[in-house]
C-alpha cells in the first residue's frame, strides 16, 4: 500500500485496524475499519479510545462512508479518519468536507491533481464536518442561525 496522504500533524497509528465485530471484544484496540454496511453509531460508546478509523470504499460508487464519516465527527471523534480502497481524486474535496483527514487509495493520487482538487472550491454551500463557513453565513454575518 502507498503511504497515506495525511492532513494531521500527529504520529500515524501503527496498529492494524480491526473489524467492527472484533473491535467490540478487543478493549485495547485503537484502530477500527468500517465496511460500507457497518453502522458508524456502533462505535460511539468507544470513541474515547479510538485513534484511527479506516472507512473502506470497496467501489467508489458506494457513498455510505461519507455519512459514516460525518456521523463520527458530529459525535466528537477527533482521531484520524482515513478513506481507504477505491478512492478517486475527484472525491477528495467532498471527503475532506465530510471529515476525512487521511487517504490511502488503492491507486495513489496524482499529486498535482490532488492539489488542484483541494484548492478548487473557494466557497461551499453547506455546513459539514470541516466547519467551513458556508456561503449563507458569509451573506448574513452575525445572523442567528435557524
Amino acid at each position, binding site marked *: 500500500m502507498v503511504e497515506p496522504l495525511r492532513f494531521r500533524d500527529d504520529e500515524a497509528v501503527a496498529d492494524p485496524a480491526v473489524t467492527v465485530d472484533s473491535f467490540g471484544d478487543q478493549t485495547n484496540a485503537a484502530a477500527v475499519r468500517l465496511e*460500507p454496511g457497518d453502522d458508524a453509531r456502533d462505535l460511539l460508546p468507544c470513541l474515547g479510545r479510538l485513534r484511527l478509523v479506516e472507512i473502506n470504499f470497496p467501489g467508489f460508487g458506494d*457513498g*455510505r462512508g*461519507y455519512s459514516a464519516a460525518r456521523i463520527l465527527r*458530529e459525535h466528537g471523534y477527533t482521531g484520524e479518519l482515513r478513506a481507504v480502497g477505491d478512492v478517486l481524486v475527484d472525491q477528495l474535496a467532498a471527503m475532506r468536507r465530510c471529515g476525512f483527514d487521511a487517504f490511502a487509495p488503492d491507486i495513489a493520487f496524482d499529486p498535482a*491533481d490532488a492539489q488542484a482538487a483541494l484548492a478548487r472550491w473557494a*466557497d461551499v454551500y453547506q*455546513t459539514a464536518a470541516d466547519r467551513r463557513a458556508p*456561503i449563507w453565513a458569509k451573506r448574513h454575518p452575525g445572523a442567528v442561525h*435557524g
Partner: protein
Amino acid sequence: MYKYDTYDQAMVDTRVEEFRDQVRRRIDGHLTEDQFKPLRLMNGLYLQLHAYMLRVAIPYGTLSSAQMRVLGDIADRYDRGYGHFTTRQNIQYNWIKLEDTPDLLGELAKVEMHAIQTSGNCIRNISSDQFAGAAADEVTDPRPYAELLRQWSSFHPEFTTLPRKFKIAVIASKIDRAAMRLHDIGIEIVRNDAGEFGAAFYVGGGMGRTPMIGPLINGFVPLDQLITYSEACLRVYNRFGRRDNKYKARIKILVHEIGAAEYTRLVEAEFAHLLAQGIEPPLAELARISENFADMAFEVGAPGDVDRSDPDFALWLDRNTHAHKAPGYAIVTISLKPVGGIPGDASADQIRLMADLARDYSFDELRVTHAQNIVLPHVRKADLHALWTALDGAGLSTPNLDTIGDIIACPGLDYCSLANARSIPLAQKISQRFAARQEEIGELKLKISGCINACGHHHAGHIGILGVDKRGTENYQLLLGGSEAADTSLGKITGPGFDEDGIVDAIERATDLYLTRRADGERFLDTYRRLGMEPFKEAIYG
C-alpha cells in the same frame, strides 16, 4: 426570478473549470470511462444512442428571456439546431461533442445556467409548479424554497454517491401541477391554523418499474428547519437505501420495505441529532432569496376583456390560457406538441422567438412544464391576440393543452440507449389520428415511455403507453387510469400488448367507448374511474 450573487457565480464558474479538467484527463487517458462516467453524469453528460447528450438544468423550470435566447444559440452553435424540453423541466441537446462541452458550459455560466447534477446518483434539479408566482390558487410562491434547496443540494459533500438518483419537487398549491407525490421527496408548502408557513414532506414516491405514491411523513416542518429535515431524509436514505440491486435502490423501495412509520422514526431521530449541528441557514437567507421572487409590476386596471371574434384565437384562449392572480393578466402555455410533431422539441429559431415574446409580453420570464411545454406566466390580456399571432406564424399556436394531442413522450429508441421501443413515432401517429376530435374528447393526458424507466410518466397517464421488446420487435402495452394531479393514481395494464398501429386503434376504441358512455362533464379519467376496467377491456379486445 433568482439572480446570482458573486458566490453563486463563482460556484458555477468553478464547476466549469473542474469539468474542463476532468474532460482533459479523460481525453488524455488519465481517467478510464468507468471512472469518468459518474463525473460526466454529475454534469448532465450522457453517451446516448448517436452521440453525447447534454442535459442543462432549468431550476424549478424558471428562466429569463436572456437565458432562453442562449439556449437557442447553443442549439445552433453546438448542436444541430434544436433542443428537447424534458419531463423534468430541463432541456437536452442530442448531438454534443465531448471536446466542446467545457466551452458550452462556459457560455451557459455567463447567463447563470449550468448542467450541475442533472444526472447521476445525486440530488437532481429541483422541480416545481410551472405556474408558481402567477397562479391564483397558490398559498405562496414555492420557488424561494426550491432555490434554498437548490443551493443546499449543489455539491452536497455527503450525497454525491447515493444509492440512486434523487428527485425533489416543491409546490405550494392544492392543485398539484408538478406530480409532487411521484417524487423521491415531494414538498408542499402549507399554512397552519396560526397562519404560519411550513413544509409537508411526502417521501418515497416515484415512477420507474415500481411506481409508488409517496406517503406523508411529516405534515408541518417549520421553515427554519427545512434544510435540516431534508438532510435527515437524505442521510437515512444514503445509509440504508439498497445498493445490491439498482432496480431496488430508489428511496421508494426503502420506504416501502421498512414501512413509512419506521422510515419516519429513523428520520426523526436523525433530525433530532442534526438540529444541534447548525446546518440550517438563517431565515434571513430565505428572506434574501424571496426578494428575488417579488411580484412583477403588474399594471393596475389592466383591461380584462378579450375580443373573441376570431374562432381560432378563441379556441386557443380556452385551451392554452389559465387564470392569473393579477386582474387583466393571463398565464399562457405554448404547446410544443404540433400535430404530427416531436413532443418537446423546439428549433433554435422557435426558442429565440419565445425568448423575444417573453421579453415583449411576459416580464422577461418563461417556464418549462413537466408536460414539455413552455409557459409565458404573466401576459396582459390586452396583448394576448398579438402574442397568439406571433406564435401562430412560428407553428407554436397549437390549441391542444391537456388534450390527447398534448402527449408526453420520452425520447425512446430514436435517441435513448436504454429504450426498448420508439416513443416519438407513436406520439406522432396518435396526434394525427385524433387531431380532428381532440376538442370533442376534451381533457385526456396521454403519456408514453420507451422502457420501464418511465421517463414518459406512463403510469400517471389517463392513458399510458409502455414500449417493450418482444423478441426483437417493438411492442406496446396500454395502461388506463393513471393521474399525476392532486388525485394521484397509477394506471393499470389493459392486457396483451400491441404493435404500433394496433395500439393507435386500441386507443381509438377506448376513446369511442368513453364518448358513448360519458356522463355530463366527465373527463375520460372520470368515466374510467366510474365504469372500471372491464368495459374498456371489452371494447379494446372485444
